[in-house]
């Protein structure tokens, strides 16, 4: 009896080709998929109960971010506006607009609108809006050109590597205190240098990438 049957070569080839493709698939799954926007939801804009436009309200009407996100300076959470906040204006303006029907239902039934979260962090990440505001990190550093978004989309991946890119070198991301909420801020010749801002805000760069800064 022969050790190798007549189809031994076929099995050998199939095994070699098969393991090659299994390897390719593994690399794709482990290495390529996390790099895809599909995985990080970057540039994705989920459907919302009301198609709220930051472009219209912020850039068009000139509302300050804090008009709706009231707790962003004191709290870890920026705060979502209550239905009453929407109705402050929309009880008088666009009162019959079809796209605002969920607002009116919410007010009539006394049930909050449930928005779909665009920026979500896992529970093992500690994040606080207020400290970033207090240290001169503008809204658009993380939320992108939010003032020009007709529909809110995720501007960055929120991967740890992205967080660290700023925590390891925060200076270029800082701006003067009165420009933090300006969605169209640009550095000019009269802006204090990044290094001067770093000193002004008392930011200790050597501690910013400690594990316990974000994982506590």
């Amino acid at each position: 009896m022969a050790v190798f049957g007549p189809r031994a070569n076929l099995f050998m080839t199939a095994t070699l080709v098969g393991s090659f493709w299994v390897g390719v698939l593994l690399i794709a799954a482990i290495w390529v998929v996390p790099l895809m926007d599909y995985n990080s939801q970057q540039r994705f804009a989920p459907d919302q109960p009301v198609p709220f436009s930051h472009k219209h309200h912020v850039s068009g009407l000139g509302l300050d971010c804090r008009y709706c996100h009231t707790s962003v300076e004191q709290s870890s959470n920026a705060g979502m506006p209550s239905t009453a906040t929407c109705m402050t204006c929309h009880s008088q303006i666009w009162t019959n607009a079809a796209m605002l029907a969920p607002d009116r239902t919410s007010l009539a039934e006394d049930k909050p609108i449930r928005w779909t979260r665009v920026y979500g962090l896992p529970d093992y990440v500690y994040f606080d809006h207020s400290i970033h505001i207090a240290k001169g990190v503008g809204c658009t550093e993380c939320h992108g050109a939010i003032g020009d978004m007709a529909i809110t989309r995720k501007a960055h991946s929120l991967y740890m590597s992205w967080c660290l890119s700023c925590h390891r070198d925060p200076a270029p991301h800082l701006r003067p205190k009165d420009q933090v909420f300006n969605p169209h801020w640009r550095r000019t010749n009269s802006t204090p240098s990044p290094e001067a801002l770093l000193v002004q805000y008392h930011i200790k760069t050597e501690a910013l990438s400690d594990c316990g800064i974000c994982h506590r």
Partner: protein
Amino acid sequence: MRWRSSTALVIVSMSVAACDNMANQPKLNPYELPFGSQINWPVRPVPHTIARGDPLNPPGPPPVSMALLERGQQRFDIYCSPCHSRLGDGNGMIVQRGFPHPPSYQSDALRNAPNQLFYDVITHGYGVMYSYADRVSPADRWAIVAYIRALQASASASLSDVPAEKRSSLQ
């Protein structure tokens, strides 16, 4: 036998650890539904309660200082200027888009109105104006009242009211 049971223990503990979903821990984040919640909207504060740290009786008006006026200006520009405009004349952007015109702070009635009136209107709203109690803290309301008084004073001020060293910045 002993080797086998310890191996089993390692395998079991490793597989249990793999099931542990650290991304979704048993703790409540803002706006998150309580575990096993039967309702499908976030919990709101219990009626007739106040947040921890809030004073039972709101503070009275603080002494006027430059810091208070600057805080008042900042808060006024955020919450009031959309309708009342940065000048306080009631021609804000939202009014230009069809919101009913609020009275100007320069009217005789509002020039002679007590400070408490402005505080109360911010707290409870007035006419078509909604309450801002959830957006403007009591201390900030007094800061805004102080800034409204400054706006009223500035409208009828002349160059001689400005300190000599600052006049050049206006001319």
